[in-house]
């Protein structure tokens, strides 16, 4: 099922949580809504589910205007952040609930519901736990039951709110791979919310990066990482360093010196220079480069991270060096980013 979010605005008590958001989700796609807290990602998910109503704009499921449908009619599988398992029902009853509450004509017989529940339990690798109550399950197991329950109604769209948020790191990694497998098997159109970029980049076909109630960028993991289209995305996805710079005569200037980067297509004026700390070349002399004094150095896995103070106004940037580089405090290092991007800045 395709989902189209068209110019949706959502206000809570007149406070805007989403400004004019549009998004096309293709059928069978696995999409991540990624952003810091307060970015509006959960609000967008709840709007798609029908748990909230948009202040303005519409949401389409295929050709149908979902705004006209109640939450029951939308047929979405929603996995709640804290699972919202019915604690007085067994695992099997939880999974079968959505089928059991159907009106008489479309309700499968009890035997069929039981069969579906145990099939789904197989799918989520929890066979044999039918009779358990939610309180008797581990966090990861509850997560899977919640997913099975959402899938039992054969949803048009599967929506997951911070699906791994309440789990510890090891379980998270396992479940992440497992969710990808399930998605590949069942082919549900799936949208999940996360604030963990690693999770989003690893799992999703496309990532929707959100900030302050707006969509900043939509793209594959490669696209949002390699060609971020806004300072926010550059800063939010992956490690980045930035410096206030200036463009003059098609050259990038730092303070009063050009640094050997040409930017012919960028209009002249103040800008911010972004680059990845690991994507720099070290230089010996400094004709056109960035040079700074080491103020801090630490070992991170197979690299060494150093913090440099650059220029007269002592801007701090981070770069990565090979481990054997003898970067000591106070020593001077000159470098130039290999890949970088400029965003015009209003001064």
């Amino acid at each position: 099922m395709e989902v189209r979010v068209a110019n949706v605005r959502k206000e809570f008590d007149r406070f805007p949580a989403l400004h004019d958001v549009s998004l096309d989700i293709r059928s069978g796609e696995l999409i991540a809504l990624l952003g810091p807290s307060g970015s509006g990602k959960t609000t967008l998910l709840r709007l798609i589910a029908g748990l909230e109503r948009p202040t303005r704009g519409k949401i389409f499921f295929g050709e149908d205007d979902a705004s006209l449908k109640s939450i029951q009619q939308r047929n979405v599988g929603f996995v709640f952040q804290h699972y919202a398992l019915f604690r007085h029902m067994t695992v099997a009853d939880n999974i079968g609930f959505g089928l059991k509450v159907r009106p008489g004509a479309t309700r499968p017989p009890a035997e069929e519901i039981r069969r579906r529940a145990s099939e789904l339990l197989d799918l989520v690798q929890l066979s044999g736990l039918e009779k358990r109550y939610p309180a008797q399950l581990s966090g990861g197991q509850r997560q899977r039951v919640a997913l099975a329950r959402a899938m039992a109604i054969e949803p048009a769209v599967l929506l997951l709110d911070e699906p791994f948020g309440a789990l510890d790191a090891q379980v998270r990694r396992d479940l992440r791979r497992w969710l990808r497998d399930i998605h590949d098997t069942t082919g549900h159109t799936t949208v999940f919310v996360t604030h963990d970029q690693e999770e989003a980049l690893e799992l999703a076909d496309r990532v929707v990066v959100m900030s302050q109630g707006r969509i900043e960028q939509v793209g594959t993991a490669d696209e949002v990482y390699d060609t971020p289209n806004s300072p926010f995305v550059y800063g939010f996805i992956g490690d980045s360093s930035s410096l206030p710079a200036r463009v003059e005569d098609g050259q990038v200037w730092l303070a009063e010196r050009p640094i050997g980067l040409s930017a012919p297509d960028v209009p002249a004026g103040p800008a911010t220079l972004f680059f990845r700390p690991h994507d720099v070349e070290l230089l010996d002399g400094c004709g056109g480069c960035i040079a700074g004094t080491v103020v801090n150095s630490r070992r991170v896995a197979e690299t060494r991270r150093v913090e440099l103070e650059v220029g007269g106004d002592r801007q701090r940037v981070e770069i990565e060096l090979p481990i054997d580089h003898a970067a000591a405090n106070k020593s001077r290092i000159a470098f130039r980013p290999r890949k970088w991007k400029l965003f015009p800045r209003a001064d």
Partner: protein
Amino acid sequence: MADPHIETYDPEHEATSAAITESRPARAVLMAIAFVFLALFLVLPLVIVFSQAFAKGAATYLTSLSDGDTLSAIKLTLIVAAISVPLNLVFGVAAAWAIAKFEFKGKAFLTTLVDLPFSVSPVISGLVYVLLFGAQSVLGPWLKAHGIEILFAVPGIVLATVFVTFPFVARELIPLMQEQGTGDEEAALSLGASGWQAFWYVTLPNIKWGLLYGVLLCNARAMGEFGAVSVVSGHIRGQTNTMPLHVEILYNEYNAVGAFAVASLLAGLALVTLVLKTVLEMRYGAEIAATRGH
């Protein structure tokens, strides 16, 4: 349902921690004060009810209970409770649903209003209905002309009882349902359940013990209410006498055994209520939630 690994507050350990407990003599004195006080004020009154009821033997006890007026008082008490408790149950659930599941203007004020009857003297709770339906009232002559009896009849007793027991179920459910939030209902709705189905299959099982707890307290008060009912009842023996009113009549007639015999039934009801209440608190404490006590 209950996770065996989750222990509730276990003060055993703390109470024995040397740094934070009183010296032995101090503990003995405090405990002695508490026990003597409770014995004088709680245990002795209970003991005297039963000792007076059986003062002239079991046979006299049974005779006084099988008196016709006593039996009709028992019957009336049961009828009144059977009407007023379900009414307040429905109100309690409806009010808790509106207050706990939604955000709206004036919610805090409404919550305060629900508790209002607790701060009204029982006598005044009865008086307001006398003023509303009595012969001197605006409605009085009209009711009389149409042959509708409210005061000094069962409807008046029910109304007064409903008034004094009004908050019990609601005040039990409101904090409980607020704590539970709307997540479970949203999940049920998203799975295709209708509003009634969500209430029936999801909300009701979540609140059932709290509901039972509220009903228990509501019933105890409904059967035992004296002041409010006394004002509206008219004390007609065999007709508008509830058990507590009958206790008063027998006592004022110097029929101590009779009065204490009926009183012993009410005391028995109180004890059963306390036992059930304690059992509910022990087994389902978390599902009854924060509002222990009154």
